[in-house]
């Protein structure tokens, strides 16, 4: 349903950031795009909701073309995007006002807006903060507000661009739980990150390096490949791979965290 065909992109200053990208993303899947800072992740996903238009190649989202101005508003309703900095995507004074911003742009009736706002806020667990000033919220709460603001548009596809990179570890895992929950409820999720740990939950991981895709597959295959090329993987995975190479645990094991690896080695009764 999302398809990028041979997409390249150069910024107006001539900086060539994407090279011949080919990606197909199925409806309902959970994709992680993994890459270091500056590898072109943000540039890539901004093609999906028409914030950027490809210099070469075609993008198609649910049969629409984000580069065409006739489809653009429909596309932006279909594709919700949450950004990195919790402070610079807020547009309202309070949580409910901010969440209402999208539906207001869609020119919905105020009853419908109210309904969507209440639902969206409940989906991210901010019920008791509906009326709070954004200035008084923590980064994690702001980021949940931003997610609610996108959910209030009722998009099919959700794109998260390094949404946890400015948060503490508690908010980080809360946000990841929300994202996984949303995928279970049927949203297609494209989750962009430079943290390998955050790529483990996906159905599929796409690794971006200097504007090109270098791996694409299940987390197990991709992390195996990264490990085989001699680069760092999360410690519990490195241990699992070493144990597998030594024939001590089954090669099918792909632990999400240290605890599940430990359960694999010596199960508690």
């Amino acid at each position, binding site marked *: 349903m999302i398809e990028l065909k041979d997409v390249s992109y150069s910024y107006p200053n001539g900086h060539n950031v994407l090279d011949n990208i080919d990606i197909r993303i199925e409806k309902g899947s959970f994709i992680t795009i993994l890459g270091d800072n500056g590898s072109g992740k943000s540039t890539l996903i901004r093609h999906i*909701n028409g914030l950027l238009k490809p210099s070469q190649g075609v993008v198609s989202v649910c049969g629409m073309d984000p580069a065409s101005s006739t489809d653009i508003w429909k596309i932006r309703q279909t594709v919700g995007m949450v950004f990195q900095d919790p402070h610079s995507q807020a*547009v309202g004074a309070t949580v409910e006002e901010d969440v209402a911003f999208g539906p207001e742009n869609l*020119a919905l009736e105020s009853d419908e*807006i109210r309904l969507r706002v209440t639902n969206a806020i409940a989906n991210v667990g901010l019920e008791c903060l509906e009326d709070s000033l954004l200035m008084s919220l923590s980064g994690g709460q702001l980021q949940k507000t931003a997610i609610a603001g996108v959910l209030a548009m009722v998009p099919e596809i959700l794109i998260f661009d390094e949404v946890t990179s400015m948060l503490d570890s508690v908010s980080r895992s809360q946000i990841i739980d929300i994202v996984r929950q949303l995928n279970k409820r049927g949203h297609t999720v494209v989750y962009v990150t430079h943290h390998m740990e955050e790529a483990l939950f996906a159905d599929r991981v796409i690794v971006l390096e200097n504007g090109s895709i270098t791996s694409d597959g299940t987390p197990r295959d991709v992390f195996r490949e990264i490990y085989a090329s001699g680069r760092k993987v999360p410690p519990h995975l490195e241990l699992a791979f070493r144990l597998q190479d030594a024939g001590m645990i089954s090669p099918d094991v792909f632990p999400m965290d240290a605890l599940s690896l430990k359960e694999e080695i010596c199960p508690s009764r």
Partner: protein
Amino acid sequence: MEGFLFSYVAGKSILHGLDPRVKIFSVMCLSILIFRSSALVDLLVFTLLFVGLTIIAGSGLSGIRSVRPLFPIFVFIFLMHFFFTEGVALFDSQFSPTYEGLLKGSLVTVRFVLLILYGSLLTSTTRPAVITTGIERILRPLPLRRVGVTSFEIATMMSLALYFMPHLLWYAGQVKDSQLSRGSKYRRDPISGTLSLAIPVLKGSMRMADDVAMAMESRCYQGNFRTSLFELKMTTRDVLVFSFVLGVTALVLYV
């Protein structure tokens, strides 16, 4: 944020329930009347009216207290008139305040204080988003599109400013802290100190403006027609209050 200048204090009073357009219109009428009154006695009436409305609003003293930061300005305005109005000198010295200055200074200062107080009564009984929606609806019939903006854009700009003003102050604080912690000295030289703060803050806010614009676009902002979470509805009570304010103002101005 409660208690800040012009901040909203939640409540359920009649004033809270009035349509923002009626409240904005009333404050405008009151401002005109206050500016036209030339006797301290008239201003006493407006002061009593303000006290009455504040009691109705139930916001207590917070409205009055929030005006405190402006106190130096009030004093300044008063002193300017007190000293620089021509007239009968109060003391026998070269730079003496005058009797006329005392009168005029009091009059101008009380007017100014009253304007601010009525303004803060409006903002303390009306959510910022409702005020901007009200202003949007007031501006909508104007031919703004001829000059290239829409009433919706103006309203959006105002709500953005409401969020970003405090945020910018917070951000400036962060930049200042990070500079201080890297050993830069502020107090020595106010000019280069201000510059070295202003430039990174300006740079940061430009980048932020880009990000915000992108986030707004992603949420389908187009600056054309949009609706509001807070739908405005004129009730009979709103119409009555509106007519009353209009009537009284016309009476005072033209009779």
